[in-house]
């Protein structure tokens, strides 16, 4: 294989073993290429200076303890664990998923509304919260919402920082807020529906968890 000075850069970029061999043979009689090849290889050799594989004895203990702590934390549902992937999705995917989520909630909400069981049927009364229980739920929900709002206020400065991670968290919270608003609207029309209340509670819990993660990053 015959190599000239013109082929040198291409070999530096993507040369095969044979091409490198040919270049070195050419460099033996070409001082310019010899210097270039030597300098190019020296950069690779110099990179070894950045290799420091010394053990950090305490590091594994630290990692293990944090892994164990997280492992022993209460297990969240599979669906909620999937939300951990949210920050890693691209913005367009996030927007698309957020849109789809709102659409699904809207469609299912209107379906439930139009196909709801008459309130006076015996089947329905079993599923409905009685008025005293309802008052209790609404009071607790108000307290819970206030507590989450306080958490949101604490996380506010961190959330407003212009990092991609925080932008993702803001998006996630936006989706959760819109889902919460949707569910609250449905619950407003059907206040005694326990199933809706459970869904709402799950959304609040996810929001709380998200805000705690934001605060955790703040440290």
């Amino acid at each position, binding site marked *: 294989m015959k190599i000239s000075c013109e082929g040198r850069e291409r070999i530096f970029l993507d040369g095969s073993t044979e091409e490198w061999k040919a270049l070195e043979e050419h460099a033996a009689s070409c001082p310019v290429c010899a210097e270039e090849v030597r300098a190019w290889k020296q950069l690779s*050799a110099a990179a070894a200076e950045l*290799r420091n594989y010394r053990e950090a004895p305490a590091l594994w203990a630290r990692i293990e303890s944090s892994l164990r702590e997280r492992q022993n934390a209460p297990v969240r549902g599979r669906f909620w664990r999937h939300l951990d992937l949210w920050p890693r999705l691209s913005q367009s995917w996030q927007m698309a998923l957020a849109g789809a989520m709102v659409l699904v909630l809207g469609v299912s909400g209107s379906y439930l509304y139009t196909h709801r069981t008459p309130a006076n049927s015996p089947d329905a009364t079993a599923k409905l919260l009685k008025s005293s229980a309802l008052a209790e739920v609404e009071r607790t929900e108000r307290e819970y919402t206030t507590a989450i709002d306080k958490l949101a206020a604490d996380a506010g400065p961190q959330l407003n920082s212009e990092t991609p991670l925080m932008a993702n968290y803001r998006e996630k919270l936006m989706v959760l807020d819109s889902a919460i608003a949707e569910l609250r609207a449905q619950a407003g029309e059907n206040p005694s529906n326990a199933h809706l209340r459970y869904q709402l509670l799950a959304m609040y819990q996810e929001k709380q968890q998200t805000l705690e993660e934001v605060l955790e990053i703040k440290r």
Partner: protein
Amino acid sequence: MGSVGLTLPWEHRISGAVRTGERRVEPSESRMETEQVAAEPSQDAAVASACLSGNLQGYEQLYRWQGTRMKNLARNLLGSPTDAEDAVQETFLKIQRSIASFRGQSSFVTWSFRILVNTCHDLRRARLRRKVQATEDVESLLPGSVPRATVSHPSLRMALERALERLTAHQREVFLLYEVEGFRHAEIAGMLEISETASKNTLFQAKRNLRALLEPPRSAGAGGAR
């Protein structure tokens, strides 16, 4: 017609291995053949499967196998051993949190290093922002005013670290992953979500830029090569 002359100030410190080992035309690829740090499919699969089953021993195996390499990459990307340890710890937590999403499309090591690189991105950005805010008026700390690597005759490592700081983040990552950590272009492509060709091009640009940064200023009469 003088030679282009990369008379690096650290030239004398480089071992003769490069010149005597002329068969090693691509040092990193050859290193991979001997060290085989990443490309051990059975070990990779065993560690992945242990981690997937929620066994903490799986994470320990990953740490014993790749921990020092992860820490080394993080230290080179972040410039501080403390930040590097934080990044490795955070990476393990992220691996644990998202292990269910590992589909085996790349090796487990490649997947773990992708998380590490992203974690370092986040930490670096956060730290840079803090630094810029705190030192807004201290011009000497801003990247644009970093002195040429060769001016003060620092050690090879320091010269290289300073020169690396002047590269783009992407070039720095590819150079460190390929030349320092010994990953293949195909693996780097998987980690950085780029094509293999893009990885090769980025490495080429990184090495060209490093060379220019490490080359001593030429005297007026010595220029004119090519």
